[in-house]
């Protein structure tokens, strides 16, 4: 178990290093790296001082080391647009995005998996067919369009939900959260629903496919032959077995939800990282992009690490050898 952990941690390091090389090369491939750090309308003096400060006259490998050094000190430079240190900027936006993403992923899993299991348990019933029809729709509808529809129906037509913003927030451990106030919660519902739709459909489909196959398997037949009730079979046998692929996908999808938050945040004016990155791409605010990419890479590796560990906990075949 310890060896496994070590392996994964080691692998995580490799990924982060690889990502930093990639981003570094990417930034250098685009053009003069000086442009990444200072705004184009800066004077020659500022340019020269920045070149000296960041050592762009040094050989490439030293520059890379310098780049890594700055990463470690989380010094990503200053945003041109907001004119503040990028690390501060990103940290101020991160909680909002995390809150939104977590809400979406939890909803998708906690609601999607039971529904999917039901659809797989009774694959031919009318309700299951309806669930599947809706899930294939949810799987296909682009997130942004669904967001537009939500706003149109709930905010414009019926007026019962706010169309954007984060609403009233409460400070917890020094960060602001929406879900603790009624107003904040009402602001959270539509964006979270919007962001959850795809994962929700995905979870339904995965849980259904797994359950449907397992219900025909000898494992379930044997459990039935032992007189174990259907509910216990679903809860103990089937859920345990499908949770292995589900956790894998959950991990992968947490990352992709984090990325797709960009879309939802844009539509619902949710003040998170996503809006920031879109703005920085369109306004060529490169320090922000670099920082965002590195942050995402780090988050990804962390998520993968957690998923791998959960995976090992869930599947005993990965833990011990044959006796």
């Amino acid at each position, binding site marked *: 178990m310890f060896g496994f952990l070590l392996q994964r941690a080691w692998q995580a390091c490799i*990924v982060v290093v690889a990502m930093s090389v990639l981003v570094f090369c*990417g*930034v250098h*491939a*685009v053009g003069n790296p000086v442009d990444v750090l200072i705004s184009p309308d800066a004077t020659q003096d500022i340019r020269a001082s920045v070149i000296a400060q960041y050592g762009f006259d040094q050989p490439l490998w030293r520059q890379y080391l310098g780049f890594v050094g700055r990463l470690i000190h989380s010094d990503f430079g200053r945003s041109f647009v907001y004119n503040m240190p990028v690390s501060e900027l990103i940290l101020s936006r991160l909680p909002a995005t995390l809150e939104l993403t977590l809400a979406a992923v939890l909803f998708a899993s906690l609601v999607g998996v039971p529904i999917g299991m039901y659809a797989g348990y009774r694959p031919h019933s009318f309700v299951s067919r309806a669930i599947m029809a809706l899930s*294939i*729709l949810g*799987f*296909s*509808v*682009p*997130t*942004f*369009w669904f967001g*537009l*529809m939500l*706003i*149109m129906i709930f905010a*414009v037509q019926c007026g019962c939900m706010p169309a954007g913003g984060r609403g009233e927030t409460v400070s917890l451990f020094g960060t602001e959260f929406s879900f603790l106030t009624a107003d904040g919660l009402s602001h959270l519902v539509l964006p979270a629903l919007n962001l959850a739709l795809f994962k929700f459909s995905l979870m339904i489909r995965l849980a259904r496919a797994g359950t*449907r*196959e397992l219900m*025909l*398997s000898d494992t379930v037949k044997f459990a039935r032959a032992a007189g174990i009730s259907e509910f216990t079979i679903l809860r103990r046998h089937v859920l345990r077995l499908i949770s292995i692929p589900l956790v894998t996908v959950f*991990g*992968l999808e947490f*990352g*992709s939800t984090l*990325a*797709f938050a*960009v*879309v939802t945040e*844009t539509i619902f004016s949710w003040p998170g990282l996503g809006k920031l*990155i*879109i703005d*920085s*791409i*369109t306004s060529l605010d*490169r320090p922000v*992009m670099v920082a965002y*990419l590195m942050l*995402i890479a780090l988050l*990804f590796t962390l998520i*993968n690490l957690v998923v791998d560990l959960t995976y090992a906990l869930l599947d005993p075949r990965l833990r011990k050898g044959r006796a």
Partner: protein
Amino acid sequence: MSDTPFSRFLGDFRKNKVATGAAIVVALIVVLAVIAPLVTPQNPYDLAHLVLRDARRPPGYVGSAGYTHWLGTDSQGRDLLSAIIYGLRISLQMGVIAGAVAFALGALVGCAAAYVGGRVESLAMRLVDLQLSFPAILLAFVMAALFGQGRSQLILALIFAQYAYFARTAHGAAAAERQKDYVEAALSIPLSPWRVVFKHMLPNSLPPLIVVATVQIASAISLEATLSFLGVGLPPSEPSLGMLIANGFQYLLSGRYWISIYPGLALILFIVSLNLVGDQIRDQLNPRLHR
């Protein structure tokens, strides 16, 4: 009809009426997109034909050119139906080009890895796995951030994001086929490796790749629309469905729903149909459901 594996497959497919309908819809949309200039009343991007007076008219409005705008017009007076068909054309182009290249590249990487085996296989597949965990939309952002916006950047981003799915699938299928007795039988004759791979392994690895292809083309189209909507996808000179929807967004709140809704419905109809077709093929291929 003779009893070939393909005809049996087709027969099973036809039993699912929904999937058959979806396949027909996909075929119709593809044909429509290909012959767009012949069927649309207007070339929506020929500025000479646009009349500002006709802008933002509701569905059924008879425009100054004398024909009815069945789905209304957009903010610049374009016939929305024509714009949608042209938009589908662009979306489809992007999806198919990216899908085809990603298919070829992925199948090559996956099959080659399965054939060579050993450390090369492990390393290549590990990289593919890592890339799989990196969402496509993020890759597209990275590409846009690094190389700017444009058609070829977007196609490149789509290929780069999608080939990993094909590689994973191709590798899995090829590695599974490699273990099967009929491949051992071919090696036992012995047939040349070239023949074993192309005549025996590849045709049997194809079906799962086709499933992935339907899903990936659908997701490429959806992704392209999303990026265009966000303004980091195609340039305004190539108005895909995503951009049509984005342009209509601002009018949505003022009640001119059709500018955003109809292009969205067209997009969804196409993606849903593609996914339905893919689903049916996947179910047919799953041996665990046919016992």
